[in-house]
């Protein structure tokens, strides 16, 4: 039994090993394209450290496996011929095995999976390498990667499905393995055993039951931060102390000089702001870690499908908020899998079509005035509007005969119920559709757009607010409650009184703003309370109303916020009043509140009250679904010419 202290040390050890395994993976991925000898040496050193550390803590089985891993590395170093994809597959499979082992150890510190199959595979490969490099073709296109590797790549996601679900994935993947492995690579039945072995490492003791709780959520709890930032923080704190000292001194000496105090307090305010901003940046991590996850998944999948794919990663140094990284990882993995599984054709087909082999998968991220834009593009078969439309009609999501623009047809893939089990392969997800991807992105306050040309490829572009932490917010009153609307989501604040309000259709209202027809919706129909108190009753607000000058107090209800519905359409959300604009700190909603419709976060107002932050994207979505509820294929929308 370990004492609390020992447990802590043990957890730290596991963290450290996990970090090293992460580096090893990165190096393995690089092996195919860089100075192999140097990389092999680095990997060996890393593995050696891991072995030493683990043995220090009595993890002898673990250490023994790492030793076998070292043997493979040594053999590769000694072999004259370059490292093949097959060898990299095995290295990555071993890395996954070790990584899952660590996960298992977090739950049960005596965890030790059956390593016999993996060891056999390693041993066999080493013998083949020693026997003669000639038998292994340099770039083995027919070699299949260990299916287990791709399955396990998903399991490391903190929000992954239960290990038992992944294990099923693994075994079906193994069954699907094509029967032409390259010479030197374990034949199909060994593949299956390998897959089972790694899956075994996944099925750690507490697997099937409840989430094992805190110990597994390491990535959620810890951060790597630069020591330079710590120094800067200490400096700011030092300055704060000085100013505070001045005030205290004044107080003690009873020499309250107003001017001195004002200066001191002002400086304190500045220091606090700087401190705040600095601490916020601590949460920013380079996209590199995210990219590596994705690269690994993409590579494993491409290998498994025997498709040659060139994976381009651009913008790895882009800093992203830690929470953004955590929440965007799964959707991105899903999109990448779609691209490789459904989008990119197999090598033969591509050659016939005159398309380049290897195929291209590019993942790019960059900052753009307050936003982070992430795009995933491939040069595969693209989205076929006709097929999508047919499918949507078949699923009853769209009326037959509906005329829709290509862009709108492409967006049909985001409807819940679009992809079902028969369509989605075991690889692309366990029935997880694009609607889940879209929802996840919306929860981050972002949006996802598609552009595609049939036969040429598809690009998914995700736009997210750069920092989840602080945004400019418009405080509005809806149903006598104060809530926040993100300033950047509001295109314009409209005084309805200065427009002619037309009635369109059945009771819907709209205004004409510089040629564009903008429908008006009461925000309280979405996020208000039913029991309305009388109009003259004003709740807790010491802020001056910022309603436009020409509206009188009894017309205070004619303010609307214009938000974006789509590229060319807008929606005006009527509120009771716009109270103020201020910077607010966004806090994510607790899990149990995450599904409350219409909101994307919560904040604390100056008076200490919590206030909800509106998700205008969600409101827009709900609005569109509402107006199309009876006729999902209808194309009559405001703002579009016939």
């Amino acid at each position, binding site marked *: 039994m370990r004492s609390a202290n020992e447990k802590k040390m043990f957890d730290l050890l596991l963290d450290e090993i996990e970090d090293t395994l992460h580096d090893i993976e990165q190096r393995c991925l690089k092996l195919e394209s860089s100075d192999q000898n140097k990389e092999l040496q680095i990997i060996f050193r890393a593995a050696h450290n891991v072995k030493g550390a683990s043995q220090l803590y009595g993890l002898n089985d673990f250490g023994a496996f790492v030793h076998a891993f070292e043997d493979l590395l040594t053999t590769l170093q000694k072999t004259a011929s370059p490292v093949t994809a097959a060898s990299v597959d095995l290295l990555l499979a071993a890395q996954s095995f070790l990584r899952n082992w660590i996960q298992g150890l977090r739950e049960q510190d005596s965890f030790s999976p059956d390593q016999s199959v993996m060891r056999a595979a390693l041993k066999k490969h080493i013998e083949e390498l020693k026997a003669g490099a000639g038998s292994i073709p340099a770039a083995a296109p027919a070699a299949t990667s260990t299916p287990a590797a791709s399955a396990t790549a998903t399991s490391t996601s903190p929000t992954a499905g239960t290990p038992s679900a992944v294990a099923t994935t693994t075994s079906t993947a193994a069954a699907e393995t094509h029967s032409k492995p390259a010479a030197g690579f374990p034949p199909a039945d060994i593949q299956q055993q390998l897959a089972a072995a790694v899956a075994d490492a996944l099925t750690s003791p507490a697997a099937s039951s409840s989430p094992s709780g805190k110990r597994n959520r390491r990535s959620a709890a810890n951060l790597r931060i630069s020591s330079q930032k710590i120094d800067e923080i200490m400096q700011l704190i030092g300055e704060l102390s000085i100013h505070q000292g001045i005030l205290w001194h004044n107080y003690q000496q009873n020499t309250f000089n107003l001017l001195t105090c004002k200066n001191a307090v002002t400086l304190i305010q500045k220091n606090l702001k700087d401190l705040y901003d600095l601490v916020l940046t601590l949460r920013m991590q380079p996209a590199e870690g995210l990219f590596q996850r994705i690269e690994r998944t993409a590579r494993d999948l491409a290998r498994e499908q025997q498709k040659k794919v060139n994976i381009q990663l651009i913008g790895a140094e882009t800093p992203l908020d830690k929470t953004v990284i955590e929440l965007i990882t799964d959707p991105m993995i899903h999109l990448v899998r779609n691209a490789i599984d459904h989008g990119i054709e197999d090598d033969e087909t591509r050659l016939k079509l005159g398309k380049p082999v290897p195929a291209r998968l590019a993942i790019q991220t960059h900052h753009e005035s307050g936003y982070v834009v992430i795009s995933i593009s491939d040069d595969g078969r693209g989205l076929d509007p006709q097929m999508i439309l047919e499918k949507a009609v078949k699923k009853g999501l769209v009326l037959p005969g509906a005329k829709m623009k290509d862009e709108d047809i492409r967006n049909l893939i985001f409807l819940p119920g679009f992809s079902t089990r028969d369509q989605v392969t075991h690889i692309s997800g366990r029935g997880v559709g694009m609607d889940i991807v879209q929802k996840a992105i919306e929860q981050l306050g972002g949006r996802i757009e598609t552009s595609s040309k049939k036969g040429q490829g598809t690009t998914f572009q995700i736009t997210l607010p750069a920092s989840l932490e602080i945004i400019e917010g418009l405080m509005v009153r809806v149903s006598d*409650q104060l809530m926040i609307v993100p300033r950047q989501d509001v295109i314009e604040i409209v005084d309805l009184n200065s427009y002619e309000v037309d009635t369109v259709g059945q009771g819907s209202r709209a205004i004409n703003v510089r040629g564009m027809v903008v429908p008006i919706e009461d925000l309280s129909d979405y996020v208000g309370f039913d029991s309305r108190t009388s109009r003259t009753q004003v709740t807790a607000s010491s802020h001056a109303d910022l309603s436009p000058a020409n509206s009188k107090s009894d017309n205070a209800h004619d303010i609307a916020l214009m938000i974006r519905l789509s590229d060319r359409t807008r929606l005006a959300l009527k509120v009771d009043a716009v109270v103020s604009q201020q910077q607010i700190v966004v806090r994510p909603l607790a899990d*149990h*509140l995450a*599904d*409350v*419709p219409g*909101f994307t976060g919560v904040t604390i107002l100056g008076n200490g009250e*919590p206030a909800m932050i509106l998700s205008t994207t969600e409101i827009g979505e709900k609005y569109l679904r509402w107006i199309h509820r009876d006729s*999902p294929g209808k194309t009559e929308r405001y703002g579009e010419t016939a």
Partner: protein
Amino acid sequence: MSQNSNKPFDTANDLQSGTPEIEAHDESKYLIFRLGSEAYGTPLLGVREVLQPLKPKPIPNTAPHFKGLINIRGQILGVVDLRTRFDYAAQMEPSTAYLVFETETGPIAAIVDKVEAVVKFEESQVHKKPNIRSQVPVEFLIGASSHQGQLVTLIDLNRTLSKEDYVQIQKAKLASTG
């Protein structure tokens, strides 16, 4: 190990005693509280603190017994009225309290009629699978015991609330139809 305080997490005491783990991980301590005329107990380990009632900020589209949000020292907690959730009458009395406890999805404040005491129940004192009729669904019962002559129904608060307890889409425009 000094015992001169009744508070469950008396840090000063714990630090002095030098063996904090033993106190903190005592799984046999329960916090007794009241809903209506019934006495309930929940494992002390899961209880963070007890507060005087505050005024929660209501949120639209939530279940009726979800009263809203409060701000406790910078952390935002949801407030659930346990009394109405389990079909008791709900009134504000001087003894009404907010019981803050941990759940899998974060801390929650529960409105209870009264927080009574911290009591230690040994294994032998707890009747598992009691055949008692309780307004709390049977799945959540840990067992029953008695304290000062009264029946105490032991429940694990951390498990009694699910997502459906929080979100309730009341507005037609929000129901996401296909």
